[in-house]
């Protein structure tokens, strides 16, 4: 089989080419290693300009159900945070992790909702006495966070950011606490206990001032007038005093009313009469029951710009309710890796495929130099004199290149797994397919460049330029997610971009899109076929 003979020879030459081994295997590994150690934890993530508020929620919530709030207070606070523009919430599952992150300066501050947070928030009140005992959460600086069971872990080396986070927490707590406390307090205005305490306070307010009694005169006049006209009252009088006296009282009621009016308008007389009467005696339970709600309604009416019963900030202000943003909440994941190499860091899930793809196309140099050497040593002419077809010669070249490319691809992924602790995702079989298809495209491009370049310098210039430009355009040098959408779309003109998208699906997504991966593989194979066809057309093999 001449093809295998040719392939075996070229493979032997490629394997003996230390220069290729350095370019194809060592360089990408070194780059991945250096970048893996140098890049920040958030490498590969879309930059989020929102302020990150990290939260540990240990809140037990409230026992049983209650009308407000219908969820733990910690969730009310977190909803308020996520509803605030420019803020995103990061949930850390345990306190020790949070303390570790702060201690290692990886978080400026972390809010910890202690287990009793809901219970303490529920007790916050303007009242001085209640059961259970109320908590006054305020002081001159705002909310006393420790009083409500909120702990702020702070990194002293990042005071500005920590202070910003603290202020955000303060504002949010005020926004949650104030309407809650006003609402609760307003419920008390005019209620029986309130009115009773008012009555108690008025009980000792003696004497009843003559002016007050004077003001009662019209009421007394109305009462007497109505009574005299009422038949039932007439019957009661008739029964109590007899016909003659009842007739006399009825006939003299006018004079009686006048005398009563004169008495009520006589300050001295009233001073004497009211000497032993207290205000509180007027506040009978029935009066209190009737007057209390009217008092509350009256206050609400006077201050009608606000709804004091609402218990939420938006309700208090009679504004539209703020909507919590579920997208503003993410679970904290430790993506920093461990050890000297940061093994397992999520950045390797991006770095390894990026450099695997980019350096797959550095095959252009190895193959180009192989062809140039074949021409320079006269052996290409010698092959042309042998009983070989053009297809046999080309296939004899393609096979070892494909083998080298596949070896490179699998080697780098294996090294990524062994050295850098990257995962192969949930579909290693599809990962292998992407390696194969990427290699097909790389080999195609390599033989195409080899068909154009005539000298080692041309190979180096064309190859390096092509690989770096395609790498840059496609997003091999930076995460594709960071590219502008237009550029991202344009980059699909490169095989690299398809390979990177397929790798991203397989290595970064828990549920890879198989259709997308199959499409990418198809496109990569098409690139390989087209490049090889161009090489076939260009290459002087006969």
């Amino acid at each position: 089989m001449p093809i295998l003979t040719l392939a075996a020879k070229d493979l032997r030459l490629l394997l003996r080419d230390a220069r290729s081994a350095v370019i194809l295997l060592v360089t990408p590994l070194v780059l991945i290693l250096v970048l893996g150690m140098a890049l920040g934890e958030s490498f590969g993530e879309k930059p989020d300009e929102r302020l990150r508020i990290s939260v540990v929620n240990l809140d037990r919530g409230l026992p049983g159900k209650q009308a407000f709030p219908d969820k733990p207070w910690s969730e009310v606070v977190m909803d308020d945070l996520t509803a605030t523009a420019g803020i995103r919430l990061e949930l850390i599952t345990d306190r020790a992790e949070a303390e570790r992150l702060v201690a290692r300066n990886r978080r400026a501050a972390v809010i910890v909702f202690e287990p009793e947070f809901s219970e303490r928030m529920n007790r916050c009140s303007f009242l001085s006495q209640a059961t259970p005992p109320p908590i006054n959460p305020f002081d001159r600086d705002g909310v006393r966070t420790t009083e409500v069971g909120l702990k702020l872990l702070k990194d002293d080396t990042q005071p500005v950011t920590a202070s910003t986070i603290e202020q955000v927490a303060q504002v949010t707590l005020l926004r949650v606490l104030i309407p809650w406390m006003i609402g609760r307090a307003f419920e008390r205005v005019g209620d029986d206990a309130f009115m009773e305490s008012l009555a108690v306070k008025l009980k000792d307010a003696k004497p009843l001032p003559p002016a007050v009694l004077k003001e009662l005169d019209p009421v007394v006049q109305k009462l007497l007038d109505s009574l005299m006209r009422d038949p039932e009252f007439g019957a009661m009088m008739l029964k109590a005093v007899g016909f003659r006296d009842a007739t006399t009282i009825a006939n003299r009621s006018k004079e009686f009313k006048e005398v009563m009016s004169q008495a009520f308008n006589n300050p001295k007389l009233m001073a004497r009469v009211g000497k032993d009467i207290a205000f509180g005696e007027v506040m009978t339970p029935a009066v209190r029951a009737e007057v209390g709600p009217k008092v509350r309604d009256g206050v609400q009416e006077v201050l009608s710009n606000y709804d004091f019963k609402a218990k939420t900030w938006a309700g208090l202000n009679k504004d539209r309710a703020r909507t919590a943003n579920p997208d503003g909440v993410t679970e904290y994941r430790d993506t920093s890796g461990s050890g000297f190499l940061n093994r397992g860091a999520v950045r390797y899930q991006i770095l390894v495929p990026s450099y695997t793809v980019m350096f797959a196309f550095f095959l252009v140099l190895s193959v180009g130099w192989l062809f140039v050497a074949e021409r320079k040593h006269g052996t290409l002419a010698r092959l042309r004199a042998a009983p070989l077809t053009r297809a046999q010669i080309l296939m004899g070249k393609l096979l070892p290149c494909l083998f080298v490319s596949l070896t490179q691809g699998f080697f780098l992924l294996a090294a990524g797994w062994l050295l850098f602790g990257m995962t192969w995702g949930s579909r290693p079989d599809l990962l292998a397919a992407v390696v194969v298809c990427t290699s097909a495209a790389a080999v195609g491009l390599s033989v195409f460049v080899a068909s154009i370049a005539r000298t080692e310098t041309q190979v180096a210039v064309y190859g390096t330029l092509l690989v770096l430009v395609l790498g840059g355009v496609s997003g091999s040098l930076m995460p594709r997610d960071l590219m502008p959408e237009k550029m991202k779309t344009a980059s699909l003109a490169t095989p690299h971009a398809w390979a990177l998208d397929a790798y991203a699906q397989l290595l970064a997504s828990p549920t890879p899109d198989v259709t997308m991966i199959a499409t990418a593989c198809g496109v990569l194979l098409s690139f390989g076929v087209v490049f090889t066809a161009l090489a076939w057309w260009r290459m002087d093999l006969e």
Partner: protein
Amino acid sequence: MPERILEVTDVQKRYGENVALGGVSLTIDAGESFGLLGPNGAGKTTLISILSGLSDSDGGEVKLFGQVFTRAKRDLRRLVGIGTQDLAIYPDLSPRENLRFFGKLYGFGGNALESRVDAVLAEVGLTDRANDRAGTFSGGMKRRLNLAVAVIHGPKLLFLDEPTTGVDPQSRNHIFRQVKALNSSGVTVIYTSHYMEEVQELCPRIAILDGGKVRACDTLPNLLKTLDGRVRFRLSAPVPGFEERLAKLPGARQVKPTDNGFEVTTDSVPQLLPAVMTLAAELGATITAIEPREPTLERVFLHLTGRELRD
């Protein structure tokens, strides 16, 4: 009647405006060792490229082993070996690996290939260095390996294009011996060179190529016959009647007086030279200087082309 192994009829080749071959015709029989002589740019390598299947001609016809030969006739290429002017070996492979590779391309394999590789390595004197990288070899050793590669598949017709370029005398002798041995074993050899002495030594029949055309094609003696030999000599003093006696010597065709002497044109310098010496003794003349000039291939070439071979 020997088998006609190669028949070239009016073969033409152009590279743009440049005419590399302007209608070359020649025939070569089986078992011949045929020399193709010409200066640089004469068209030798172009002709060899066409005859060995490296390229096609623009016109004319090449018949190889009785069949019209073009690049498409891959089976005929199996019968042909070519030692290219430029080396055609893999410097990163050893001689053994080079020979195995080319042997396999021609269908050899297994023990037959190994035996053949060992034999060829021995023939070119590279057995001791069989497993060293060819890139570390001297120019002469590389040339010998190049020749080994050309014959690994046992061709019936062997083209050797300037096979001794840049080699040391030892390697040149090796190559000469091997070419002679191959020819003795029945391999038809077409040997191109601009070293006249090589062609003279190896090739009974020679074609002189210049400007893309065959200027002459014949056996060496016949080519030499196209030119006369000359003997020039000087006498210590003029001798009356010497010129007349000289003209009557056997083989002397023309006598021309020169300063203090004569130049005699002859068909045979070896025959004329002793006769001149005898005549001088007989007439009491003293020859102070004598210069015999036999016809050489170089002079034939100069005569035919009007320029030196190495121009």
